[in-house]
């Protein structure tokens, strides 16, 4: 296999958990002899965040024009997440480059909104929404921003991005089909890469259950439901203490603290953003992890990986990527019934420490094996090789399309569709040839 020159377009700072995951994969790719150059894609103030260590050169993607990038790299891989400041510089490059998109989030409306701030504002955003999801997806008098669950369901903007990639990676099956429907190239589902750090084991303190929620204290993390679960149970009310380890907004802190007071639960601990060392240190006193999410906005969850790798029983909402953990490894709560189910599980835990520990150990072994960067790269490389192999075909297609567009024709014009159909049929012939060469086995 040829060693690839890979442009690894990604945030590259310690505040981005996507950067951490991307770093693990980049290191594994480099270990296998591929030349990985980090192309930072942070926008605005995040551009100045210090870089994390890299297995190759690091530069900002804005420092290279499309032609140079095309020339310098066999393939460009872009990490796509829903935070403009960390991913914003990638957006203008979709039109000129063939980018393999690694979709970390299902909901990408935030990313697009950040971009639209400088490119036509809400008017342009509304136009894009309608163009992507049809005129009925956003009425004239409807606000653009609705609750994140409805947003994720009705207009997550995932499709707007996936249409612009040449191949896509999903980190779980629950959104892979959406990518398959819209991405013009192959789609692979690869379990999120996760290198388990040396995490402290769960404490052996009887009579207490310290529960941790990790990550930004958003409403979709169901922290309020967890508080109500604790407050509603006379067994749990005194035993359980809840820590929120991650960024929070003051308004949300007040809201959650008020709920805790009302239901007579112990006051919550808010740590604010912490680096990895502090995070791991914070886990020393934690018995149970909560990965409740409703709605699910992410493709796969780094917090879930961390929770499972920590060897602690973990509460999840039973949908999205959280439902893809095999049975018997997590404590699955029904969507919409998180409070009730969490209460029952937490009560069960207090009397079933050994069973809970065995469950956590199974999950720990599973996550470390399944989510290793090596396993990730094993799945990623065939995809990248295919993208590289099909590059001449894609470039010819792009070139023909760009010529037609100099005539003022729109993307939906019959002439462009004719050209696309011609190239699609060539692609199918290529796929058949590839299949024949492999003895009739499809990849």
């Amino acid at each position: 296999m040829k060693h690839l020159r890979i442009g690894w377009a990604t945030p590259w700072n310690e505040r981005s958990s996507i950067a951490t995951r991307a770093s693990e994969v980049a290191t594994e790719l480099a270990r296998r002899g591929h030349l990985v150059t980090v192309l930072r894609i942070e926008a605005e103030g995040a551009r100045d965040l210090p870089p994390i260590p890299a297995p190759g050169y690091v530069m900002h993607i804005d420092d290279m024009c499309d032609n140079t990038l095309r020339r310098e790299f066999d393939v460009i891989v872009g990490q796509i997440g829903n935070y403009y400041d960390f991913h914003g510089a990638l957006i203008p490059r979709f039109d000129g480059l063939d980018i393999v998109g690694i979709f970390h989030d299902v909901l990408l409306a935030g990313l697009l909104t950040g971009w639209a701030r400088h490119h036509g504002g809400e008017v342009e955003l509304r136009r894009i929404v309608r163009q992507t999801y049809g005129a009925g997806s956003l009425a004239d008098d409807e606000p653009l921003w609705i609750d994140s669950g409805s947003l994720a369901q009705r207009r997550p903007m995932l499709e707007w991005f996936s249409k612009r990639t040449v191949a896509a990676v999903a980190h779980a099956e629950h959104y892979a089909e959406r990518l398959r429907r819209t991405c013009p190239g192959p789609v692979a589902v690869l379990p999120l890469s996760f290198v388990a750090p040396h995490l402290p084991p769960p404490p052996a303190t009887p009579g207490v259950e310290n529960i941790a929620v990790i990550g930004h204290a958003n409403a979709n993390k169901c922290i309020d439901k967890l508080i109500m679960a604790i407050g509603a149970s006379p067994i749990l009310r005194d035993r359980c203490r809840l820590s929120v380890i991650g960024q929070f907004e003051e308004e949300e802190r007040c809201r959650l603290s008020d709920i805790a007071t009302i239901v007579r639960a112990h006051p919550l601990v808010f740590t604010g953003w912490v680096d990895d060392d502090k995070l791991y240190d914070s886990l020393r006193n934690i018995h149970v992890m909560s990965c409740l999410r409703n709605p699910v906005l992410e493709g796969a969850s780094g917090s879930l990986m961390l929770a499972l790798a920590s060897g602690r029983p973990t509460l999840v909402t039973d949908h999205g990527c959280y439902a893809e953990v095999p049975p018997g490894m997590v404590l699955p709560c029904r969507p919409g019934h998180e409070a009730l189910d969490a209460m029952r599980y937490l009560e069960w835990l207090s009397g079933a420490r050994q069973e809970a520990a065995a469950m956590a150990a199974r999950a720990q072994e599973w996550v470390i094996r399944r989510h290793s960067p090596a396993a990730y790269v094993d799945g990623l490389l065939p995809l990248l090789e295919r993208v590289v192999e099909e590059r001449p075909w894609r470039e010819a297609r792009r070139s023909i399309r760009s010529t037609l567009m100099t005539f003022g024709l729109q993307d939906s014009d019959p002439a462009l569709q004719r050209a696309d159909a011609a190239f699609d049929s060539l692609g199918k012939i290529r796929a058949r040839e590839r299949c024949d060469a492999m003895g009739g086995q499809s990849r």
Partner: protein
Amino acid sequence: MVPFVHGGAEELYIHLIRNLRQAGVDAEGMRIPFTWEPAERLIDEMLIARRLRLYNVDRVIALKFPLYMVPWPDKVLWLLHQYRQAYDLLDVKQSNIPDDDRGREIISAIRKADNTAFSESRHIYTNAPITAKRLWDYNGVQSGILRPPLNDPELFLGGQSSGYVLATGRVNSAKRQFMLIQALRHAPGVRLVVAGPPDSASDADYLRQLAIQEGVEDRVTFELRLLSRQELAQRVNEALAVAYLPFDEDSFGYCTMEAFCAAKPVLTVSDSGGVLDIVRDGQTGVVVAPDPEDLGSALRQLAARPAHSAALGRAGREALESARLTWPTTVEKLLS
């Protein structure tokens, strides 16, 4: 230029290459297939032209739509005509492009691609004032006028009239040879020779049927084929006059120049376009309304007054000579 299509533009193309070579230029002609039906196909044709890649060339001289879109940094246009169905013929409802939303998109695409091609050109010449005017009116592009010279003037030396009126050029409904046949009914005794390649078999059949229908078949001679240049010159040199009735022709027309070169008067009609730039009624020829009766009257006069007709022809030759249309000067301009 298009393979297997032969008309004035193709003649020009052949002689341009010949004269460039005579001027010491290593010149190659470039023809590509082209069709305008269905109209949707026009976009594909433009795409083909636009995607062509040249190399080992110093200068491109481009003549016709869509090949003038070929990208090249040193390109000179000698514009014979644009795709007129997207411009002036559209305005007079003689376009093959449908009058609907899609048609408007196609027209817009043609105009945008044209404008790109024009903006890339070092210099633009047009073959006639009317072409230049259209280019200015529709595209806002200035051009110089460079009329095509006659390709082989040495063949058209003139001579004694054999008394017939000759209709030359491609045979089709736009060139209106049918009107001359209808006119014969009003010009007893006048003989007509129609000599030229029909665009289709039906064009030829129609004329033959019409002659029978009008009862003039014994006075019409049809030579409906591509005549050799020598054959054609002989027909012109022995004619009493040449009749040429195109609808809204851009340029003088080769038929006109060949006639004047041979000192033969030209009979034409008042809506023949660029032909009227050199054919003046009563000076170098006869100009009448596009009507069989008027044409019949003109034919009668030409036949009845051969000396006067010859004088008109000589004046036509002088008019052509004063236009100083020669290949060496034309080539010099195209290469400058």
